[in-house]
């Protein structure tokens, strides 16, 4: 592969999921140049019949299909390991050395920019959460401490409005300081805030997930959960929800949580007690550490609507495994 094509892939990974290149410095004034790249990011986990994670699989073990059309994997990563570039023959090579020595304009030159996951925690501080507020903070703080060193974390809180308590950082202490500064609020605009969190997450290069910590009822959002889910689906951002309510107490919230997590490749947990919350976070952390992330450029496909994604394991033994991935996405128009 030529240096030029390496650069193309490097730039493409920066813009992951066809997202816009975020040139913060340019936002202040003057024209903003955006690059559209139809690169799809897909994260998934593989488990066996006992729900144990299967790790150590290689790019060649997977077949990715979009509406039944086979796709060629561009990059591949397992857990928090750095992604590798997948060659035409299925071999892999390190992705990050661009060979020129000079960083490209607007591209973060850090070699580990794409290592680990960017985790956005969205913490409900509305009055519905008043009683469990401090226990929730403890559980989130524990989760932050236990994240892989390569992961970055942002802590947002919300009630009627979103509050960016701590921007994306690898400094666990900063994130916890932000978390501990959260203030109890009033109304709950969960889906408005989730939307804004997804918008922030979509501007960040690399793999990202959003973890919502809430008890469910929303009384102030303007946007519908499924409109927000569509944004997550299209941006390739899995949503995890930890509900502090019991599953049967609020069936409407429960069914929505199930829907938005399943459709984006995340999971929903019902954890009323602190112990259950800790367990839920542990499970999410395991998901992050044991998941695979691939990127690919979709093959020509006339379907401009929802495209169904399926991930298969090529080998016979793999047929017994369960693959948990988002079911599809809607291409940008």
């Amino acid at each position, binding site marked *: 592969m030529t240096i030029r094509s390496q650069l193309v892939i490097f730039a493409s990974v920066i813009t992951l999921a066809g997202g816009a290149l975020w040139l913060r410095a340019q936002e*202040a*004034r003057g024209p903003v140049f955006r690059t559209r790249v139809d690169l799809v990011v897909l994260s998934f986990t593989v488990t066996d019949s006992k729900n144990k994670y299967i790790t150590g699989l290689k790019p060649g073990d997977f077949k990715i299909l979009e509406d039944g059309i086979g796709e060629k994997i561009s990059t591949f990563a397992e857990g928090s390991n750095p992604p590798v570039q997948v060659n035409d023959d299925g071999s892999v090579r390190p992705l990050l050395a661009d060979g020129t020595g000079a960083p490209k304009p607007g591209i973060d030159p850090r070699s580990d920019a794409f290592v680990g996951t960017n985790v956005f925690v969205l913490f409900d501080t509305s009055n519905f959460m*008043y*009683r469990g*507020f*401090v*226990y929730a*903070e*403890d559980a989130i*703080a*524990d989760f932050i*401490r236990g994240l892989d060193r390569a992961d970055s974390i942002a802590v947002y*809180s919300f009630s*009627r*409005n*979103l*509050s*960016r*308590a701590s921007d994306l950082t690898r400094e666990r*202490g900063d994130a*916890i*300081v932000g*978390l*501990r*500064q*959260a*203030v*109890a609020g009033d109304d709950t*605009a969960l*889906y*408005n805030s989730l*939307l*804004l969190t997804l*918008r922030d997450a979509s501007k960040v290069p690399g793999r990202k997930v959003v973890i919502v910590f809430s008890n469910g*009822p*929303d*009384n*102030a*959002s*303007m*946007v*519908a*959960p*499924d*409109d*927000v889910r569509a*944004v997550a689906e299209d941006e390739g951002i899995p949503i995890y929800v930890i509900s502090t309510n019991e599953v049967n107490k609020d*069936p*409407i919230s429960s*069914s*929505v949580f199930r*829907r938005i997590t399943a459709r984006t490749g995340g999971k929903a947990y019902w954890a009323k007690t*602190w112990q259950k919350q800790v367990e839920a976070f542990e499970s999410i952390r395991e998901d992050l550490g044991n998941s695979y992330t691939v990127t690919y450029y979709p093959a020509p496909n006339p379907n*401009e*609507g929802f495209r169904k994604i399926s991930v298969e394991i090529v080998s016979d033994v793999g047929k017994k495994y369960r693959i948990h991935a988002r079911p599809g996405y809607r291409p940008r*128009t």
Partner: protein
Amino acid sequence: MKVSSVAAVLLFFLTTLRGSDVVDRARQLEASGDVVSARTALAAAVEQAPGDVDALTEYAALLERYGDGDSRAAYTKAYEAIEKTGNRAKLAPVARELALLDLIAGDRAAALKHIEAYHAAGGTDWPNVAGWKTAEAASEARGVVYVPGPLRSFGRMAAIPVDTSPDELLPALARNVVTNGYQASHSNESLEQTEYLKLVHRYLSQARELEDLAGKDKVIRIESCDSANAGELLRIVGYRMRGGCGSEVVLETVNATRAFLTTDSGFPLAQLEQALRTNRPFTYDFHPSPVRVLYGPDYWLSEKEKQSGEFIDAFLSDPAMCRLYLGLSKLDAETAEELRKTIPMPRLKAYAHVLDFFGTMFEIRNGKAIVPGGARSASSWGELVGVSPDQGAAFFDKLIAKDDGWMASLFDALSRMNGPVKDYLTEPGRMKRFYMAIRGRVTSPGPARPVFRSNADMMLLTTRLRVDANGRAVIPGSLEVWKNLFINHPNGKYDGKLTKSAAGWKDPDDVVEALFALCRKSVENEPLKIFMAVSDVDRFRERPLEAATVDRLVRAYHVYGAQYSIFNDVPTVSDKTIVQFLDETESISRMKDPALRADTAGTMQALVALWQIFCLQGSIAPNQADAALAGVLAPFTQVHHDADLFEAGKAGSVLLLKTAGASDVSAPQERLLDLLAGTANPVDPDAHAQVVQEMNRILEAQRIISLTTLFQLDDHLQSLGHGGKIDPALINRLTSRISEIQLPRSSLTTVEKNAFAFGYWTEKHVETERKLNLRAAVERAGTDPEKIKEVRGLLAPFLRDTLVSYSYAHYAPPGAQVLYTNPLFVRGHDFIGVQGAYHTWKNTELFGTGWPSNGGGRLVGSLSGLPYALAEAEQNFLVPAQTQALIWGDLVPQLILSAKIPRWWDVTPAQMHWVGVHMRYARECMAEAAIDAETRKAFVEALGRHAYPARTLLIERLLESGDVPEAIERVTPAELYFAALRMERQQTNKGEADPVLADIRQLRAKHASEVSERAVSRAFGTPKPTLTNSYRPELLELRTFPTLMGYSSRIMAESWESNTLYWAGLADELHEPPAQLNVLIPVWTEKVVEHIFASHLEDWPALLRSLRQVGDDVRAQAKLQAGEAKAALQ
């Protein structure tokens, strides 16, 4: 200006001009509007010739005229250069300007030095300036108490902004206790504390424990993880250590109640945890915080309370004390002191609610009460109250105790006004008559009893009433119309007594009296709303409305009243067209098929909304407006089927485009967007293109079918009827777009769906569109003209959406998250609404907030309130910079509205500079007021027309003490502007030597029509849909309103006129072209909203702080860019 142009100017000046030539040339450049080049030239000239007195002076004056922060430094250089020459004539004006700028900068010593130099150089004004004493303000009447721990922690728990000063803390706390601290008890009639107040008490208790732990030096010190007091600290804050001391230690909750207080009050828990993990000392300053108490704590506490505990606990436990504290803190120091001395505290406490709501305008000067109407009305006030105003405090004592607050509310409403209407209302005979009407026979409950003031209607009436040149009230139409309304009351009875008395009405005063009488009722005051709406329609018309038209408008108001702003915005609409509009709306309302009715109403309203925008933006000339509206409406008479509707929509669109000057209508969507973005021929193509691009993005997100495509399809269908062939590409374009229209979010479960209350017809509208198979329909139709007409009718729902989407895109708030996320937001506009509620013509409302009731919020009703509803929908997407942002509600939509409805394409540089230079002149006047008593008197009088007495007096005292920066800090941009206008008119004797004043006069001489009161009001005013029934931007010179019951806080928000004036001044200072305001103001406004950190709805200083912070950020950014540009040049 581009760097290359600046360089060219620079080169030209440096190589060709010298000395006075530069000054002349710079003046010419400035006069031509090229301020940047003028400034660059002068800057270069003074750099090259540092001793050139003329260039230095001219440069300094130019900087001053544009409010540049470097002007003082420039004047200093000029001063030093002149000093060397010994030219006294040139030194005097420079020393004078410098003295004023010194004071504005807060440098009193330098100011004294320059005043002395000014006098030494022959300056004659400002004799006897000896210096200034420190402002004592109200501090002499205050004592101090302490709350435990840092103020910011207490503030967080008590919902008070962190930047509240010790002086302002107790009033803010009192307000929160009054409004949020107590609720009716479930078990008996007493009040019980709310959760908010319980938390404040619990916090105080915890803070006292921490204070004890902090010991004598009031600093919490934990030396190491295993220190003895570490455990005690953790117990107090409700946490414990998990894991042994060292890197594994983690703090976890052990007592949730205490832990909540700890975290919610902002205790540095994370830092404590970190210190324990690293085994380093933890220190936390826990000194108690001083809080100033009006008159000292002893005034407020009973003997028992003095013995038993802390002031703050007694304060929190007594809502009546808080109410009185709030009331007294709103008064000016002189008045409050008089009341305190004269009226015993228990009596004041008993009427604290009246004092709180209606005492703000009370003023006692030299022992006498200032009353509205002045000397002419004083004896009437004396008779009404029972005590002469000459008795000052005794007068107000009686006033607050009178009739449960009705008279005080009238006093308050009349005190807020200025001008001929005030003269009319305070005429002694009328005043008594109107008072009796508002008072009624049964006075209880009074207007100060509810949570918000219930005299909203009276405030509205007194603010918007019109009087003619003869001082008589203007009654639209004729007296008969209003008699008829009260006697026959077509939509329900108003008042039996008034119905009887109406038959005998002979005078306009009779109508006004009836309106006053209705103002006291707590029910919906429809007659007043009708009167206000119709008066506003009549207000700017060259010929008043005919009585028959008024009668029609009055009778139709109940259903169609929300539409009247259309006629108000465009006063050239004829009576005939108004009647035509009402006929049309009634005819649409009679349509039996709800789907066709919704599409017809939507299409017509969308076209009228476009017409309204084009008229407001000047794309349709006033003399063409009437014909255009009549032309748009006419085809709707013929609408019986979808095909007729499509025809009417298309004809209306083409007519609007042509009237607005778009000669080429082959690409109607592109032309429409050009016009919506301001004009078809923009003066600033970049700004214009940006606005168009933003609208296109919204249309794309909403999957809107282009008007161009729809019209092409229609033309094609018509051609098929004449034997043409099907164009598959064209049909596919529509089909492809239709496939992108998503289902309404029907993934809701049965339970969720059961929560639906309305929206059936909206869902049906979207479903119908999705199911359309145009190709099959065309094939079925063949060449049969009738069937082809039916096929054309299938496009009608799409045309409705397309036309409606233009208004949505035009008024889209900054960010527009809803429009970008919910692709059915425009299609989901519900023109039918709840059955039987006549939503079709009502104001736009936001329904379905909070997802369980709907698949996302949607807008219901007509398009008349669309801008506000969109802003309301978007406000919660703004991310506050501070975690506790309390000034939200109705204020933010109004701020967004003021940034989106007015457009500044036609604003001239002279108009923008006019505003900017006036605000600078006001600051200069304030500096001069610190030196000169006469100027101070004049300025304070001008300010008092808009500011409340308490603030006016405080500013006067600050000026007296020479603290000009503090005084300026307390004046709003609107007050600065209006005060400057007044001061300039009065200062006829001031010489042309003052560069700012000279600039104002030059602007007036050269651009009289551009800078007329009306033109500036139109250019930099704000829309006030509730107050004026219009979206036309206007400056009303209002004193900021309080929150009023019945209108939420919309009227209050509309009384804030400062933002646009401030932005105009800022843009002038930065030499931005006026067209850029169209792009900059929405962005700046969004930032202002995000930075507001207020404690209550009327916290205007918080808004002012945010405004200034954004302004400072913008200035800093501009300075940075200028530095970079300069570096690039070098």
